[in-house]
């Protein structure tokens, strides 16, 4: 029984990790129909900000993970939006390619700045015993945080003015502009928010995976597939896709090896996209956020 609980926590953790990895990308894709291929590198930057803040400047780890990392990357994202993304609205493939170039450049710059030694921070939470087994307290934290994050995002979009303007711009930018909102500013804020969420994700994952300049590459594939599989609704899409893929990959990993887990995730994504070419929320939950 205890072992079953441990396994269940592992599955939920896998789902939570996928959610946290993907939410930044989902916000940008859902709101602006842009696929930001530099998402993995934004996460990497968030990880580095958190680790540097903690190790070099002695900032308490929770603050560097939850405040400093998202702030830094959010600001950086807003700058990138002005410099690069703004010129490429409506051209989805071109933004993918430009942001892919940005991601390569960021990897190169990070390698030159930080070198390639794996930096890391230890998990800030102690382990938790369940019967005769123990699991990482951090896993439990991630599960709770992922749910909380999606909840906060939903509240933001549903009940605030900013959320309202954002949703309106997303549906019909010209109409929203005619009614007085400033689409340019909304896009900047949205991209900044997406970047901040990516940075937050990277910082949260740093105690688990460590940070090296190329860590983004392992994130982007999974996040990209989760977001595309989820479809254009941000919250419902991320939630449904993460649940589906996370469960499949973790279960397969238990019964065989991590390789087959990864392969199972990819195969299920292929099948899903074939059956539902617009992602899950292209068909189900279409009206949701």
């Amino acid at each position: 029984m205890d072992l079953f609980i441990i396994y269940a926590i592992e599955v939920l953790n896998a789902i939570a990790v996928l959610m946290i990895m993907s939410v930044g990308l989902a916000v940008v894709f859902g709101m602006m129909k842009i696929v930001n291929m530099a998402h993995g590198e934004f996460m990497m930057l968030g990880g580095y900000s958190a680790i540097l803040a903690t190790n070099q400047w002695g900032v308490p780890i929770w603050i560097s993970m939850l405040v400093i990392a998202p702030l830094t990357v959010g600001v950086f994202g807003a700058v990138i939006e002005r410099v690069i993304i703004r010129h490429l609205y409506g051209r989805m493939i071109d933004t993918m390619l430009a942001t892919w170039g940005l991601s390569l450049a960021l990897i190169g710059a990070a390698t030159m700045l930080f070198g390639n030694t794996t930096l890391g921070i230890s998990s800030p939470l102690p382990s938790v015993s369940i019967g005769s087994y123990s699991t990482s307290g951090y896993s439990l934290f991630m599960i709770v945080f992922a749910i909380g994050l999606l909840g906060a995002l939903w509240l933001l979009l549903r009940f605030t003015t900013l959320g309202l303007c954002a949703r309106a711009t997303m549906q019909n930018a010209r109409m929203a502009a005619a009614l007085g909102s400033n689409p340019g500013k909304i896009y900047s804020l949205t991209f900044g928010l997406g970047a901040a969420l990516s940075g937050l994700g990277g910082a949260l994952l740093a105690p688990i995976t460590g940070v090296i300049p190329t860590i983004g590459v392992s994130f982007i594939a999974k996040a990209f597939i989760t977001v595309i599989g989820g479809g254009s609704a941000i919250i419902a899409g991320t939630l449904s896709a993460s649940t589906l893929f996370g469960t499949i990959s973790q279960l397969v990993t238990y019964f065989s090896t991590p390789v087959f887990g990864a392969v199972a995730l990819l195969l299920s994504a292929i099948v899903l996209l074939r059956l539902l070419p617009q992602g899950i929320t292209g068909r189900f939950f279409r009206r949701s956020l």
Partner: protein
Amino acid sequence: MAISRRSFIQGSAVSALGLAAGVAPQFSFAADSKDAIKIASILDLSGGLDIYGKPMSNAINLAAEEINAAGGLLGRPLQVINYDAQSNMQLYAQYAQQAALKDKVAVVHGGITSASREVIRPVLDRFRSLYFYPAQYEGGVCDRNYFSSGSTPAQTVEKLVPYAVKKWGKKVYVLAADYNYGQIVSAWVKKSVHDNGGEVVTVEFFPLDVTDFGAAISKIQSAKPDMVWSALVGGAHISFYRQWHAAGMSGKIPIASTVFGGGNEHIILSPEESNGILVAANYMQEIPSPENKAFVERFHARYGANTPYISDLAMGAYQGMLIWAEGVRKAGDIDRMKVIEALESGVTLTSPSGKLSVDPATHHCSLDVHIAEVENHQMKILQTFTDQAPVDTAMVCDLKKNPRDTKQYQIEL
């Protein structure tokens, strides 16, 4: 934009060409002396494996500088050409070709993973360029054009397993990196554990980019072994030790490894995450011999006191240079065959890792093996075994009998 597109493109095209033309291979010495003996080093100085590559490159360059300071080799200075293969097999092949055909170097020290070694070894065979492989690996390469200055599993595993089994118990759970090296090391561990009366419950393999070990840790907990044997390699696998500690398992089940430390894991991880891990390797920075103490001082003087820990692989690279230089001195010439024959006549020297002898039949080295325990970012050396012969490669390789051999054999256990 204020700048017209055309002028921007023209300007950047010119500057790009200028950048490309101005970039030249990095030499250790400014003067391109005709007298110099050229050496190539082909390692990963960027990409995922550069935690191994950079210290190795530093060691090679230091060795060359020391030889030059002592008057050079046969009166001629050494010139090291450093290639960065960026963890890319295609570049490994290209640079090997370049070193052999264009630079026409006297020797190539290169390759980190077995994959990269097996890419450049046939190229250097084909174009008749001497090749030294500096890293510890799975053993079995039988090639007259090739010398290995690192340890092989028979030397390290065979010593650590009995020690660990005696200390902790007979039930072993093995985690290994999923590639050629990890597969063979785990086969050696299985054999060795069995020979010592123990039992390997499971061997689990993880591709090199896996960072999520949650499932594995749960499985280990349910298997309840006496110890965990780790053959995990690379930056991504370090997260196992972090997750192990986060799950509260540090200290509950002990860990042994012959690869831990090669990537400076004991420095990167915190003491709580790494203390108590048993390690066996040919070289550790803490070796108390006078040779090693002097070497560490020189290394720090050259690269700064903050330079990363000198790893076993870095020492393998340094030793490779020492052995090759000794071979050249004995042969009186840098000609490939003459150096090979000189080394086959039996070369012994003392390196910072201990006594080193080249085994003529296998072109591998008999070397010292130290067992240590990780304690607060340091290796506390517990026991030393000298003159461990490369018995695994000797099982499949005899270059005296078959001098034309150029294969890597899979050692059947």
